């Protein structure tokens, strides 16, 4: 008994088979276009047919955009793409990546073959692409010295960067001798040390006229060139092998000239602008420092010793004043005390006793006479009384109760 599958499983299985097939994943199919629809989404739907069979085909917008002709019903074409299954309808179809009318079928096939070969070899890899010099001193050009391409290149360079040095390697750019001539030009310019970048190209023409730029030797010469190479072949819509292998593909020779040199006037202006900005930045840097210095200077003044001194002097003055006041207060107090003392002293003074009628008697030696035995008759005595002194002579000496006569005789 066989296994049971869903429709989707069958379709997915078939699709996996087709997608894994080496031939079907990259096929070239020749046929006539029928049932052509260019959908508003940009995708193209059509059928390729021959006398015996039909092949449903689709070309998505991203690929359809790069078509260099308008497909029409009845047109004979070679389509390149892969065959897979459209799941919804369960129908196999050709997913076209590129397409050419078969008018140039043979050349186109050769082009695709070579492109594939070189691509496999890695000649188109981005890591091989050299950066263009920003300011080339000498620009090499490999082209016909009498062609429109050279004229365009020179006039654009003249307009953008009038000081440029252009070195032209004259080359034959169409016909059987063209590839060898172009290769020679590339090799000559490539080995000159002063050459910084090389433009190789020609003006527009038929595919046959441009064919030298699809030559394998030319492609390899571009790849092996030690200098960055810009390809500039024909018009915007012309793609050649040279374009894929070059470090930069320019749509036209004029575009190549624009890519290779900057606009001198703009550079000079930009340089002046940067110089001004540099000067202003420096002035501002100095101003910032000045402001900082001023701020510090102001703070320094705050810290000046003189200012400190003034503060100290002020403190000192304050202290001085307090000292004087304290001193004066003290003196006043002392004076009052002295006055009080004097008053009490006065009360105790012997003079005050004299005033009350008492006397003090001194002998001639100045001793105070306290008892009668200190004197003898005839001694001279000094008696201190209130408001004066009395001098006298002893006429009699005796104890208490002793009475004398007027002449001093004891009774």
């Amino acid at each position: 008994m066989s296994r049971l599958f869903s429709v989707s499983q069958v379709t997915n299985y078939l699709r996996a088979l087709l997608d894994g097939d080496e031939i079907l994943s990259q096929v070239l199919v020749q046929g006539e276009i029928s049932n052509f629809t260019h959908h508003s989404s940009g995708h193209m739907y059509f059928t390729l047919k021959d006398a015996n069979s039909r092949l449903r085909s689709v070309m998505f917008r991203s690929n359809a955009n790069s078509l260099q002709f308008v497909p029409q019903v009845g047109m004979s074409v070679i389509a390149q793409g892969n065959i897979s299954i459209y799941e919804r309808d369960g129908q196999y179809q050709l997913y076209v990546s590129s397409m050419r009318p078969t008018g140039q079928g043979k050349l186109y096939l050769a082009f695709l073959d070579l492109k594939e070969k070189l691509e496999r070899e890695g000649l188109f890899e981005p890591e091989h692409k050299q950066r263009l010099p920003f300011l080339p001193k000498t620009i090499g050009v490999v082209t016909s010295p009498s062609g429109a391409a050279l004229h365009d290149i020179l006039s654009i360079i003249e307009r953008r960067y009038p000081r440029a040095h252009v070195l032209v390697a004259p080359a034959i750019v169409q016909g059987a001798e063209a590839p060898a001539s172009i290769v020679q030009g590339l090799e000559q310019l490539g080995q000159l040390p002063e050459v910084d970048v090389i433009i190789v190209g020609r003006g527009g023409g038929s595919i046959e006229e441009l064919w030298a730029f699809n030559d394998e030797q030319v492609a390899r010469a571009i790849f092996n060139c030690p200098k960055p190479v810009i390809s500039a072949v024909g018009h915007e819509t012309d793609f050649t092998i040279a374009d894929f292998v070059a470090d930069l593909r320019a749509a036209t020779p004029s575009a190549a000239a624009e890519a290779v040199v900057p606009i001198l006037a703009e550079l000079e202006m930009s340089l002046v602008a940067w110089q001004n900005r540099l000067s202003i930045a420096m002035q501002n840097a100095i101003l910032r420092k000045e402001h900082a210095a001023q701020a510090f200077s102001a703070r320094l003044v705050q810290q000046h010793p003189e200012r400190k001194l003034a503060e100290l002097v002020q403190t000192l003055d304050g202290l001085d004043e307090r000292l004087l006041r304290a001193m004066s207060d003290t003196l006043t107090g002392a004076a009052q005390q002295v006055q009080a003392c004097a008053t009490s002293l006065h009360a105790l003074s012997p003079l005050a006793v004299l005033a009350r009628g008492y006397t003090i008697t001194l002998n001639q030696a100045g001793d105070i006479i306290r008892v009668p035995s200190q004197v003898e008759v005839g001694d001279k005595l000094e008696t201190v009384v209130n408001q004066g002194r009395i001098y006298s002579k002893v006429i009699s000496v005796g104890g208490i109760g002793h009475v004398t006569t007027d002449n001093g005789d004891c009774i």
Partner: protein
Amino acid sequence: MSQPITETASRLGFEECLQRVQSVVEQLEGGNLSLEKSLQLFTEGISMVRQCQAHLEEAEKKVELLLPERGNARRPLPLAEGSDIGV
């Protein structure tokens, strides 16, 4: 494709010089540098501007035709508009 030998080690190309000027300006504008460092950067910036100018003035305007049959000899190519510039 080998690396192009465009600049000697001692001398920077126009683009490097210009980038250096830009970097110097940005550092200066950023502030917070010592005056000495600022002056050093400024001097460097001015020197880089001079180098840029030298680069711009260096190229010598000429258009020449390579004459391979005479051992890489050259002859000037007239540039006049519309003139015949045939080999």
